[in-house]
């Protein structure tokens, strides 16, 4: 019985936790933390159960909400693609929840339980978006995750408010475009269910309909704004880099990856390969955009002096990789894009966690904070190296394999611009991380000590001797090490992941 209800429970469980956190706030931070962990662990458990069932039966689970049959009611669809994204999202959320013990309490001296309630709501929204089989339901959950992310980001300090406001305006434009796109599709088809829509759109009389094309363009444009594809990316680094440490770890890896997943859903579930690559011949333009995103993202990251800004621009570049992979229109590119959702979710999380730990210990967000961390925080430094290796694409980390598939797909499609962009972006990433690690390895810890002592640091850590070994607390180290190990394990089991999960989700027509 539990297994039958698992698709609903994945989403409902964190929702209940969020409500309970709001009501039971007076019970103290320990209880709130425990409840949050419990909620995220529950989601992960149910996601794994659902994915296990999908793999065992080799067919998608269709869960009817309220027992109504699909085109009339709303259904949740868990197939190989949404299953692995659900596991990714809930696992990352659980790791971040564990990590948040110290940082969230420090960023939120008051109202920690409300912060955690928003945390759980954000995860609810992301999981719900991933599992939804109804385009309008997806919009509602998109807004839930967007609203809770505005709330979480606005918990940052001073400049965060303006950055959040910009994000709110841009995010609303994105969501409204998506909604308007649904409107066009609904007018032309009369349906909201993804599979039903797909069936109606594939009818010959709608193949040349301008309105359907406008609807598709609006939905895709809305999702591109949400996932910060170049040139619509300007809001992302500003908003994410001013957030608190926990918020950045939660939002930066997950929001954009789920948006990419939605793009894949719209492209290949609602519409079809034939429709997108034949009726709408944009793919050349999109591949150029994706190449530009990868290059400009990485080069902008290289130019940053602020650690979190640098990571945010890496996120922008990675979005370019995934978009390019999805639009090169072949199985290898698709595999690369989906695999990169998993890989990038983990490696972005890994880097944000490691950098967050450094910021937590030093109180500085500039590159200077990295000086001598190999002596001060050896484990964090190793985690950072693994994350960096994955971003650059050094085997056996998973970043290598996703890039391998992406390049293979681009080469098959003859998209040499994208191949070049991927290779150059990797080189730029290598230069950037070697620069960073040079500071980390050879940097003078004394200089940092002076800087911290002169009052740039915030809070109580400023006065401590920073040269001495001063590793991050255990609550941060454990999730960091698990994530870093995950990068390597995912890399080693690439063949299995591609064979058992991604291979089954490759859309018909490739």
């Amino acid at each position, binding site marked *: 019985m539990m297994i039958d209800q698992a698709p609903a429970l994945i989403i409902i469980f964190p929702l209940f936790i969020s409500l309970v956190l709001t009501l039971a706030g007076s019970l103290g931070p320990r209880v709130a933390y425990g409840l949050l962990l419990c909620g995220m662990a529950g989601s992960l458990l149910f996601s794994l159960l659902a994915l296990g069932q999908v793999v065992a039966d080799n067919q998608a689970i269709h869960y009817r909400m309220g027992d109504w049959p699909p085109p009339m009611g709303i259904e949740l669809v868990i197939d190989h693609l949404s299953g692995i994204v659900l596991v990714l999202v809930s696992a990352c959320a659980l790791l971040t929840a564990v990590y948040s013990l110290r940082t969230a309490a420090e960023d939120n001296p008051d109202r920690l339980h409300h912060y955690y309630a928003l945390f759980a709501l954000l995860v609810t929204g992301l999981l719900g978006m991933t599992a939804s089989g109804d385009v*309008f339901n997806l*919009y*509602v959950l998109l*807004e839930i995750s967007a*609203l809770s992310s*505005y*709330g979480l980001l*606005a918990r940052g300090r*001073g*400049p965060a*408010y*303006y950055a*959040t*406001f910009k994000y*709110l*305006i841009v995010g*609303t*434009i994105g969501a*409204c475009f998506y*909604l*308007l796109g649904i*409107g066009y599709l*609904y*007018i032309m088809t009369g349906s*909201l269910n993804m599979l039903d829509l797909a069936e109606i759109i594939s009818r010959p009389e709608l193949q040349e309909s301008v309105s359907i094309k406008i609807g598709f363009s609006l939905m895709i444009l809305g999702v591109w704004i949400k996932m910060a594809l170049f040139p619509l990316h300007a809001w992302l680094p500003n908003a994410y880099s001013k957030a608190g440490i926990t918020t950045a770890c939660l939002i930066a890896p997950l929001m954009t990856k789920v948006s990419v997943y939605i793009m894949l859903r719209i492209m290949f579930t609602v519409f079809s390969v034939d429709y997108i690559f034949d009726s709408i011949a944009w793919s050349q333009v999109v591949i150029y955009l994706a190449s530009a995103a990868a290059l400009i993202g990485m080069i902008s990251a290289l130019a940053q002096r602020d650690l979190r800004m640098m990571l945010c621009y890496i996120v922008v570049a990675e979005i370019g990789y995934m978009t390019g992979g999805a639009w090169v229109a072949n199985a290898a590119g698709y595999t690369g894009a989906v695999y990169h959702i998993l890989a990038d979710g983990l490696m972005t999380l890994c880097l944000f966690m490691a950098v967050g730990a450094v910021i937590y210990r030093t109180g500085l967000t500039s590159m200077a904070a990295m000086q001598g961390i190999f002596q001060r925080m050896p484990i964090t430094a190793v985690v950072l190296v693994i994350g960096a290796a994955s971003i650059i694409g050094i085997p056996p980390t998973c970043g290598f394999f996703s890039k391998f598939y992406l390049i293979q797909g681009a080469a098959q499609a003859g998209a040499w611009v994208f191949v070049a962009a991927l290779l150059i972006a990797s080189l730029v990433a290598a230069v950037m991380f070697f620069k960073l690690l040079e500071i980390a390895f050879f940097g003078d810890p004394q200089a940092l000590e002076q800087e911290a002592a002169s009052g740039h640091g915030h809070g109580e850590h400023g006065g401590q001797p920073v040269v001495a070994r001063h590793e991050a607390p255990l609550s941060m180290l454990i999730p960091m090490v698990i994530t870093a190990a995950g990068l390597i394990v995912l890399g080693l089991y690439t063949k299995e992941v591609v064979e058992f999960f991604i291979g089954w989700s490759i859309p018909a027509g490739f």
Partner: protein
Amino acid sequence: MDEIFHFIIGKYNYWASLVLLFIGLYGMIAKNNLMKKIIGMVIFQTAILLFFVSIGAKRGATVPIIEFGPDKQPLLEASAYANPLPHVLILTAIVVGVATLGVALAVLQKIQRVHGTIEEDEVLEDQRQ
């Protein structure tokens, strides 16, 4: 001539909502005052709501509440009632819009407190210092 006339009159709901939509979008992008941006956002959202709700209209149909005949039997003629689905969607979208508006106003209040202004260029000026 007749066809053009029909084209303009027959689809006036789309014209009206699209014009409103772009007015709102322009306000959101081009206005300097952050409050005006929020007003633009509300116009933008309302335009989409109008777009949706106009889909529900059906000639010769009444509100989608089942009526009963003289013998207390429900009249279940689908062509007699307007399409209920857009109304439902709009109810949801209105609530989402209100929630976004509330959050936007709260963030705006904080901007006003931190920077002392709600003009975009002055906020940027203040941030640079």
